[in-house]
């Protein structure tokens, strides 16, 4: 396999990076209502390009490479697309198109207005996020990755405050400052690597890097910095207000796509740059943070009063899932990081989360738009008024749970298989238990929207049918990923979903979720007019409420600036320490 000469189809990679930026600049030049038209021309073009890259990658049968200007590394810069990069390119193109169709109703320039500021910014930023993500996926060296990551942050932060209120501006500023903290740590790590090995090209570096202090320091700093940008617990300081406060079409971009950029970079760093430096204990720490994110994010999600914040906390929990693959990717001896089932499972998880979470945020946004509020306690009767949006929300929830055949289901199977293979039974518990937590907040929302309403529901706005179906399509796509993923997944992992064993798991997950929702929800889940709130709660419910409150306190504490920044440094130190004490023999 040749990684330092351009391959056939390599120029497509440069085009994939340039195309969205060309669209953005064109929109900036034309201005006004042309921006939206430009976006709608470039979205299908970008999707076609992503498909062309996939075809080229399949045809070539190896990593696509493009040397910019024909200069080979270490002096030149290479763009490379391996399997994971191609999968992510394709996902992002599909999700961007879905979100674009949805956003037409929210960010269309109204008739008679020459240019609306929010709409103008939204379409430009959507293109910018897309271009930056494509650059993250195909960059072949750590410095270009730094630039790509910064582009992604600069495009993502303004999306948070499109509405322009004080609360969202504050959220955007917190996001920006904390992300900058993370990126300096990343850059510091990259500088150390250059000092140690004289190159930043990924394959060259992978050959040169040794388990020694400079590599440990660089890996620890870069990992901690990237976790701050991904908002893995306890570094989620900026995520809930930013994702919960942004307009739905922007939250979908942020939650489904932007966080995947820095996550993908962690994957690159661990699997491609330093597979010989990372050790099992450090990966266990990453997995443990993921497990904590799942538990705390899900419990706090159940305690939310507003639907969009619930979905934002669900994102925090789902980010945890994305990090479970790191300890599972080690082989049974715990010495080597493998490009095996765990990596495929993790990527599949990312792809299905991208589609499902975009659909979920879009459905929540439609409910908000139609009702004029998104208080979970007042959602009664919504299922009857907005059946398509509610169906999209529930399908997305089912896709995230991973109980019936869906992308997340196969991802879970792959990860469970890896857990069996490497003898790490504790991750089996986390994987199965995580689904119960996810089921908890899906059941909570489902019960709220299905409740019968005494008075007629007043809708303040008619929602666009096209937007509803865009949300439904993305949620359904996450379920259908099961079919697309059948190829690379070994057959023995796929079983009949109606077989007694599978069915029992599904029922257990749903019952467990319902119990969690019963115990932890803010308002009593099944209360009707007769047993008014405040009536004697059972002792069990009171205990559950106390637990819920404690988790909320913990979340609030972790999201204070000094605590979060000290956690960031502590994590960097912990990663460094773990790498130091567990040097592979």
């Amino acid at each position, binding site marked *: 396999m040749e990684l330092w000469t351009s391959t056939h189809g390599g120029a497509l990679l440069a085009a994939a990076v340039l195309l969205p930026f060309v669209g953005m600049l064109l929109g900036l030049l034309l201005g006004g209502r042309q921006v939206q038209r430009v976006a709608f021309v470039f979205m299908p073009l970008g999707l076609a390009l992503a498909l062309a890259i996939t075809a080229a990658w399949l045809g070539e049968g190896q990593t696509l490479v493009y040397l910019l200007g024909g200069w080979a590394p270490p002096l030149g810069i290479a763009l490379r697309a391996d399997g994971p990069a191609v999968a992510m390119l394709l996902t992002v193109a599909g999700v961007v198109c879905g979100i674009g169709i949805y956003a037409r109703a929210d960010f269309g320039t109204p008739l008679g207005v020459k240019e609306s500021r929010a709409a103008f910014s939204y379409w430009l930023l959507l293109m910018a996020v897309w271009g930056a993500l494509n650059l993250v996926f195909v960059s072949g060296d750590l410095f270009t990755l730094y630039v790509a990551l910064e582009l992604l942050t*600069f495009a993502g932060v303004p999306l948070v405050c499109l509405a322009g209120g004080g609360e969202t*501006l504050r959220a955007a500023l917190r996001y920006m400052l904390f992300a*900058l903290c993370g990126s*300096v740590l990343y850059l510091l790590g990259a500088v150390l690597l250059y000092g140690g090995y004289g*190159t930043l090209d990924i394959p060259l570096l992978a050959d040169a890097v040794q388990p020694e202090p400079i590599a440990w320091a660089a890996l620890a700093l870069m990992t901690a910095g990237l976790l701050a940008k991904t908002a893995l617990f306890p570094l989620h300081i900026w995520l809930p207000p930013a994702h919960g406060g942004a307009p739905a079409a922007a939250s979908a971009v942020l939650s489904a796509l932007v966080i995947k950029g820095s996550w993908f970079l962690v994957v690159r760093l661990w699997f491609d740059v330093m597979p010989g430096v990372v050790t099992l204990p450090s990966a266990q720490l990453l997995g443990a943070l993921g497990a904590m994110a799942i538990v705390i994010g899900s419990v706090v999600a159940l305690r939310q009063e507003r639907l969009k914040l619930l979905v934002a906390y669900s994102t925090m929990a789902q980010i945890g899932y994305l990090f479970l693959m790191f300890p599972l990717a080690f082989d049974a001896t715990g010495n080597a990081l493998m490009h095996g089932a765990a990596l495929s499972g993790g990527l599949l998880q990312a792809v299905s989360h991208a589609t499902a979470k975009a659909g979920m945020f879009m459905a929540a946004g439609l409910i908000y738009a139609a009702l004029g509020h998104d208080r979970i306690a007042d959602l009664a009767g919504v299922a009857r008024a907005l059946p398509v949006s509610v169906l999209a929300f529930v399908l997305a929830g089912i896709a995230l749970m991973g109980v019936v055949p869906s992308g997340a289901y196969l991802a879970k199977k792959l990860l469970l298989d890896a857990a069996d293979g490497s003898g790490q039974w504790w991750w089996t518990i986390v994987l199965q238990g995580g689904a119960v937590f996810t089921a908890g907040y899906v059941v909570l929302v489902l019960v709220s929207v299905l409740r019968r309403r005494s008075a007629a529901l007043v809708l303040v706005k008619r929602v666009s049918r096209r937007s509803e179906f865009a949300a439904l399509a993305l949620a359904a796509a996450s379920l259908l990923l099961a079919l697309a993923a059948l190829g690379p997944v070994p057959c023995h992992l796929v079983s009949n979903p109606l077989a007694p064993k599978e069915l029992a798991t599904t029922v257990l997950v749903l019952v467990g979720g319902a119990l969690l929702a019963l115990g932890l929800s803010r308002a009593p889940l099944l209360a009707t007019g007769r047993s008014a709130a405040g009536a004697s709660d059972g002792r069990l419910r009171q205990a559950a409420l106390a637990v819920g409150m404690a988790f909320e306190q913990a979340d609030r504490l972790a999201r204070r600036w000094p605590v979060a920044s000290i956690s960031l440094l502590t994590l960097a130190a912990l990663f460094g320490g773990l790498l130091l004490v567990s040097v592979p023999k």
Partner: protein
Amino acid sequence: MNVETLFALCGCALVGIGLYGLIVQPHPLRKLVAFNIMGSGVFVLFGALAKRGAAAGMAADPVPQALLITAIVVAFAATAVTVALLLRLIESTATASLADEPPSGD
């Protein structure tokens, strides 16, 4: 101690000062200045590494300088975006506090 080591140690000290500022200073503008100090520390460190000529045993390595200028532009852009956000925040809320609104008592 040769001059590269001195520069590298200065860079490390700047990173430390910047980190301290980022953690303890509550005002966003001070945090931004701290970020810039920390960034400058990384740049000085990178410059010192360039002098060491890590790549091919040359007298000095030109690649870090090319990377540095890009990194400086990125840091400049980051500062500009953050200042713009901060100005908008002050315009719309008349404060520059990053703290959450006190939780509504329920």
